[in-house]
């Protein structure tokens, strides 16, 4: 994975891009979980929602292509 990407000449950590992609995925999964009232199954729903974000962020970072 490249550590930095160039945004119009300014170098930004590529993790920023991963974070944005993870956020988009999080909104999608969170919407489905809310629709199914699935968050209520967890002991601490806000913590579970935060954990979901970290899981998605980790997954996106791991799958990020090395170009």
């Amino acid at each position, binding site marked *: 994975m490249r550590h930095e990407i160039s945004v119009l000449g300014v170098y930004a950590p590529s993790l920023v891009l991963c974070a944005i992609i993870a956020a988009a995925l999080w909104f999608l999964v969170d919407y489905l979980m*809310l629709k199914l009232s699935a968050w209520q199954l967890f002991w601490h729903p*806000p913590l579970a929602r935060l954990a979901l974000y970290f899981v998605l962020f980790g997954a996106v970072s791991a799958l990020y292509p090395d170009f």
Partner: protein
Amino acid sequence: MNEIAARGSDISSEDRIAGALGSIGLDGSQAIYAFKVMLAGGLTMFLAFLVDLPYTYWALLTLPLVVTEQSGTTVWRSAARVGGTLTGAIVALAFVALFAQNGLVMILCLALWIFGCGYNARTQTGLDGYAYGTAGLTALVVAIDTGPNADMAFSYAYWRSTETIIAVIASFIVLLTIFPRSVRNEVVDGFETARSKVFDLVRDAVARDEEQTAEARLGAATALRGLFTLIRAQKLERNHLGPEFTRVRTATARLNALYIDSGALSVVVARTRGHGDLAEDVRRARSRFAELVEDIPSAREDPEAVKQRVEELRRYTGELERSEGMRKAALGEDAKTRIEGLLVYRLRENASALASYLEAALAVADPTRSALPDRSFSTRYPDLSAAVQRGLRPAAAFLAMALFWIFSAWSNGSILALITGALSLLIPTILPRAALSKAGIKIFLGFVSGGTIAFMMMMVLPSVTSFGGFLAVFMPVIFVIFYLCKGANRALAIGSTIMIAIALQPANDQSYDALRLFNSVLTLTIMPAAFISAMLVVLPEDTTWLRRHLGRAGTNLMRSAAYNRTENEETLLAQAIDVTADYGGDLQIKEPGDAHLVSRAKAIAHAGREMLTVNRMRRTGHLPDDISALVPKVREAIVAATKRRIGEDTSGELAVFENARRSAGERLSGFEGPSVERTATLRFALAMEQLATLVVEERIGLMKGQSR
């Protein structure tokens, strides 16, 4: 809503901890809040150091502005902050690209942008205005930091956005996961308060011969106005999806309608006093409604009883419609008969509004019930003159400070211009008007205390060698600031944190500059004076200003409704409530003139509603042509009446209403047209009698010296 109340009533672990802290003499909930802000501050610094931000102070500046007790409000402010930052950064890039080489033009453009942001912020409800405030602030920061070095503009814009987002992420992680406090309880309490105040108004209107007091009206309007903001904040928490928010919104809109209806009933009841004893059937109708509004059960606790009450109310309205009572208002020859007819009509309208509200409350309490129809409506009264002034204040303050900076060539003048412009734009979007005049002083005190704290930290921190050590010094400071500065003293916390952030500028290399601290203290202590001048000298929103704007708002609402320019009925009612609570809330309600303005806003909402109904019947072709032709004169007459001074001759306007009512009455006797036309004609006659009553009772006119 009541279902929400049930869920919110469980004792949480946060309550238990707050109770335990309370037992040792601490303010438990405030200590938990300060603890969360402290953790968010620590996390912000950790993330800022982790990605090696060149300026950590910007992230630290964001923190006090986005952390709030309730999750929904934090999300709302954070979203506004991020959106505003990105917009401001883009605008600054455009300004730099166009005017980087011409400082004066750049400053003029920035002043114009601040004006636009202030203008738009005033037209928004809740925290949406904060987004505009942040957009103005970010554009200022990026453009001023860049100066003539145009090639650095994108870097500054990128850094500012990153620093803001880091503080927002840290706030989210801490405040939304550790003892998250939902707005839910505030919504439940707010709804309960509004419901109880409006029900009291209805009971007072029907059962007592005395009219509602301006204080009671203002109390109900304030409770209703706050509800829409709370509902929005709760929606942003995304705790669940579904139709609940729409249902609560519908219930609130129907409570608005009941609030306005109760005022109209109160006026008519007061008018009947001068006409001796009521006819037996009218007296019975009034007593029956008084019984129906007593002891209304909660939709959650006893839905069956509420359903039964709705059926009773519907039966009651049906009986009144079938009776001759309402026709008396249109056909009655003497004033007593007509006012009795009008009373029956108002009783019917109040009963119908109450039944509609109870149905909406049932739909909230029981999600399995089908949702009621909901229409979108705007809750903010568009006071364009106030918006222009809101934009002018920060723009003028920024221009004055920027010119001082340029002509004095003082190196720190840029910071002064920036902070003055930014705070006089931002603070009014997050603090209530009453707190603004004191906010400058509190920010000043915050700067002084923040400067002292920063000085002490500067002595200790150079000997700290690890990040853990840094946090051990930094986090308790944040805890103490946010524990001590609660409620109206939040401006003090903002001032302290700003000073610590700017003067200390924590960085990875642990280099601190005492001279910078001294310069920052010196520069920023001038800012409160500029801020107070911007708030209190440039078109101040004082009592005279509030009276003028409340008076004009009433007249404008009437004109819009009369000429059918209002979006819909819900908009008219919500905007009347908005001006009542927004302007009336800061007036001296004990003063007869101020009390009259508050009552006038309610009367105008009612008169406007009648005009919207008349306009609708005209538009749909339900009114017979000869009656429809009278509407333009009625419009002119009601708008003219709202501009009249109390005591002035209103015989011209009254003649228009009397002529219109009489024409409708003549049309009604022996009516042989379609039933829809008959109903519309009766409704028109009732509206004319109602408008005449409001004018005769001097409810919609202005007192001497009040602005039209």
